C-alpha cells in the first residue's frame, strides 16, 4: 500500500513540518503521497513536489479548505483513506485538530506525536510531557499518526513528483471560519524558533522582561517564560514553556531566573543546548544545563548584551 501525508502550509508556503513528516512516513509505508489541501495553494503543492521520496502530490484546491477547518478537511482525508495503510500529519495545530477526527471515523486509534519508528508498526512516543517514553505496537489496522517534528530530519529537496488535482469532498456544514489574528511579530514562533530565551520569577516584574527582549532581538530568539512568571503576570500565558504550556526543543535554550521546577523542565529538556543563569547555585535548572552561570541576572543580562555587541 502507501502512506499519505497531510501537508502543513499557509496556502502559499509549505511549512518545513511537512518535509519532516515525510521522513517519518517513509519508515511506515511507501510510496509516500502528500495531500495539499487549501485554497489558491498550487505554489505550496509545487514546493511539496520537490521533496525527495515523495511519489505524488494530491492537490485539492477549493475555498472550503482555505482555513483548514477540521470538519471538511477530515472528510477529504477520509475520502482518500481507502488507498492508504498509513495516514500521517505533522503534530502542528492543524494536524492535531484534524487527524483524531479521521482516526475515530475509521474506528482506529491514533498514535500521537511519534518520536521514532523502530519498524513499520512499532513507535516511540512521549508521555508525561516527555518524562517517560512509551513504545507501542500498532498491528492489524490502518495507522493514523501525528509526528513530533523536532524528532525527524526534513526530507531533502531535489525531487519532481507529479501533481494530481483532485476534487473536494463534501463539507459537513458544521463550522465556518470567522477570522484570524496571526501574530506579525518580528520574533520567531516559540515552538519553531532555533533559539529560545525564557524568563522566570527571578525577573521580578513585567518591566524587567525588557532585559530578555533586548537579547532576544539581538539573537533572533523567541521569548518564553516559566509558569511562575506567567502566574505573577509578567507575561501572557501563551509564552509559558512547560508541561501545561508549550513544549519546545530549540538548538539553544537560555533559562534566566528560572529555578527549574519539574513543570518547566518537562517543556524544554529536549533542547539541544541549555544555558541557565540563576543566582541560586543549588537551583535544579543547573542539573540539566550544558552551561551554567551563577550570577545576579540584573548584572549578567546587560553584560551578556554587551558581549553580544562585540563581535
Amino acid at each position, binding site marked *: 500500500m502507501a502512506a499519505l501525508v497531510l501537508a502543513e502550509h499557509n496556502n502559499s508556503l509549505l511549512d518545513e513540518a511537512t518535509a519532516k513528516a515525510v521522513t517519518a512516513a517513509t519508515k511506515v509505508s511507501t510510496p509516500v503521497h502528500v495531500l495539499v489541501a487549501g485554497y489558491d495553494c498550487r505554489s505550496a503543492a509545487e514546493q511539496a513536489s520537490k521533496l525527495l521520496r515523495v511519489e505524488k502530490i494530491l492537490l485539492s484546491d477549493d475555498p472550503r479548505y482555505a482555513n483548514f477547518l477540521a470538519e471538511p478537511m477530515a472528510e477529504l482525508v477520509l475520502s482518500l483513506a481507502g488507498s492508504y495503510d498509513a495516514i500521517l500529519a505533522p503534530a502542528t495545530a492543524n494536524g492535531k485538530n484534524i487527524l*483524531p477526527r479521521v482516526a475515530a471515523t475509521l474506528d482506529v486509534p491514533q498514535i500521537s506525536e511519534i518520536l521514532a519508528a523502530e519498524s513499520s508498526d512499532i513507535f516511540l512516543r512521549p508521555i508525561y510531557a516527555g518524562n517517560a517514553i512509551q513504545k507501542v505496537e500498532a498491528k492489524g489496522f490502518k495507522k493514523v499518526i501525528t509526528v513530533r517534528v523536532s524528532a525527524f530530519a526534513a526530507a531533502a529537496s531535489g525531487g519532481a513528483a507529479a501533481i494530481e488535482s483532485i476534487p473536494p469532498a463534501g463539507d459537513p456544514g458544521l463550522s465556518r471560519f470567522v477570522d484570524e489574528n496571526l501574530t506579525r511579530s518580528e520574533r520567531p514562533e516559540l515552538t519553531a524558533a532555533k533559539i529560545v530565551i525564557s524568563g522566570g520569577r527571578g525577573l521580578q516584574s513585567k518591566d524587567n522582561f525588557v532585559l530578555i527582549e533586548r537579547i532576544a532581538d539581538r539573537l533572533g530568539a523567541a521569548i518564553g517564560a516559566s509558569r511562575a512568571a506567567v502566574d505573577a503576570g509578567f507575561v501572557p500565558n501563551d509564552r509559558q514553556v512547560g*508541561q501545561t504550556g508549550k513544549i519546545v526543543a530549540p538548538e539553544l535554550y537560555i533559562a534566566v531566573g528560572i529555578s527549574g521546577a519539574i513543570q518547566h523542565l518537562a517543556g524544554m529538556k529536549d533542547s539541544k543546548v541549555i544555558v541557565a543563569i540563576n543566582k541560586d547555585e543549588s537551583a535544579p535548572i543547573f542539573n540539566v544545563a550544558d552551561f551554567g552561570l551563577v550570577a545576579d541576572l540584573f548584572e549578567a543580562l546587560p553584560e551578556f548584551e554587551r558581549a553580544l555587541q562585540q563581535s
Partner: protein
Amino acid sequence: MKVLVPVKRVIDFNVAVRVKADRSGVDLANVKMSINPFDEIAVEEAVRLKEKGKASEIIAVTIGPAAAQETLRTALAMGADRGILVKHETELEPLGVAKILRAVCLEEQPGLVILGKQAIDDDCNQVGQMLAALLSWGQGTFAAKVEVHDGEVGVTREVDGGLQTVALKLPAVISTDLRLNEPRYASLPNIMKARKKPIAEKTAADYGVDAAPRLKVLEVREPEKRRSGMRLTSAAELVGKLRERGLI
C-alpha cells in the same frame, strides 16, 4: 442548555513521575493525584457559562477507578451540578473514552461538551476531536475564548502563530487551552455542598460500549538523562562558549 464536562484523574502536575523498574508503566502507587489541569479549565468555563445564564445544568463525567470520584467532587465543588462516574479499572485509549462519552451524550443530550485539550499523563490530545467525529458534531479545539450565541458557539482557537475564530453549530465539542480562563479555588462551603451533590455510577457495559485498547504498549522507559555541564564565571565567557559551538 446542558453542558457536559468530562474530567480525568491524573498524577498531579507538580509530581515527578517514576517509571516502574519492570518498564510496564509509570508508578501510580502513593502518588498525589489531581484533576487534569486542562479539564479544570473546562469546568471553570462551564461554570462561567452557567453564571452568564447560557448553561442550565453542568454534568461532570469521569471514567476510571472508584477513586476518580474525588476528581468529580473537585468539579462539583467548583460548580458542576451532578456527576457521572463510569467505573473502569483497566487502561483505556482515547478512542475507547470517546466511545463511552458518545454514549453519555446520546443519553444526556448536552448542547455543549467542554473538555481539556489533552490529559497531562498520556498527552494524546485526541478525545475531544474523536468525540466530535463520532457524534458528527463540529469541534472547537484549543479554545482561548468561547461565546455562546443562539444555536451557535464562537470559539477562538490557539493555532500556530496566533488565533483563529470559528463558529460552530450547536451541539458542539470544545477543547480548552491554557489561555481560556483561570480556574477558581473552591470555597470551603462549596466543598461541603459538593459532598451532597449526586453522582451516578455506571460502567462501559451499561452503555453497550467495547472500549478495549487496540495499541499494545510494549514498554515504558525513562528518557535519556541530561547531565549538568560546565559552570562559567561571566556572561562574556558564556557568549564566547556559545560562539565557539556555533550556536549564536
